[in-house]
């Protein structure tokens, strides 16, 4: 088994990830990550004020995990495509800064995200708690997204 998939499966077997599932904060769309690797679709609970369906799906790109940062794209599971920009969650200043399709329509503008890291070396000191490091687990990114979607 690939090391990145092995590490992902290890992390989703740990308490922090399982606790999120048991308390309805997030969930895996597929129970067998190996079948879609390195793309994994995970939903995160949202305030219905921010996102009417109450949960938002993301397709995570996870090759090289956790040495490489994850990439998260808001996802339309019905059409299996990136979520249309007009359907992205909207709300607080913090939420709109991260969910910003004017920046990119396939990624979140976040220090956790592989797409946003290039050119943002300053984030390393500005957001040390969020700037992706190989010691991080995907759960930290999910908690960050969950806090935004309930804010």
């Amino acid at each position, binding site marked *: 088994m690939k090391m990145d998939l092995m590490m992902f499966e290890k992390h989703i077997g740990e308490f922090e990830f399982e*606790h999120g599932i048991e308390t309805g904060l997030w969930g895996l769309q597929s129970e067998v990550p190996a079948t879609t690797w390195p793309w994994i679709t995970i939903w995160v609970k949202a305030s219905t004020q921010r996102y009417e369906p109450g949960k938002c799906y993301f397709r995570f790109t996870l090759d090289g995990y956790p040495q490489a940062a994850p990439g998260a794209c808001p996802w339309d599971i019905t059409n299996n495509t990136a979520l249309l920009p007009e359907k992205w969650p909207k709300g607080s200043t*913090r939420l709109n800064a991260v969910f910003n399709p004017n920046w990119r329509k396939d990624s979140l503008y976040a220090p956790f995200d592989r797409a946003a890291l290039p050119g943002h070396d*300053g984030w390393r000191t*500005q*957001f040390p*708690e969020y700037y992706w490091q190989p010691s991080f687990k995907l759960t930290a990114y999910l908690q960050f997204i969950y*806090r935004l979607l309930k804010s």
Partner: protein
Amino acid sequence: MKKIYLHGENDRAIKPVEIAADAAYQDVLEIFKREFEIADLAQDYFLFFEEDEILADGTEVSIELEIVHKGHYHGHRCKVIKTVVSYNSQTKEFNFKPSATGKKVLEAISEKLGISPVDAVDLLLKVDENTIVQGTDHIGSFVGHHDCSLRLMLVSDKVVQG
């Protein structure tokens, strides 16, 4: 068999273990010492259940019923964590059991500071700039037994920009 989760002193790891259905607190304490590789078994550790708490009037509530399946237990040498929280250039002191969760601590602090649940959504508890206290963390996991105290910052979550 029961599955339980063990939390320890000055260590954020959460260790799942399986125990006998009729295991007692003393059995769990022994397993805790093994899991957290505590060399000196004579050290005086206490075991706390996640639901143990200290009420606003200082009353300590300890639930020592049978070990609960999927329960969270914390081994620590401090009985109480004296917690000083800074928020908006003011500081407040609280006492928590080592097994108090980040979620419970944030709720208690917000209530005492008069912060509404709506406003509290945007607040984070931090030990330092790099370390967010997550809702599932036990507060004793950030504290050694030397002084049984902890300083926390209650801050607004940052807006990503730049």
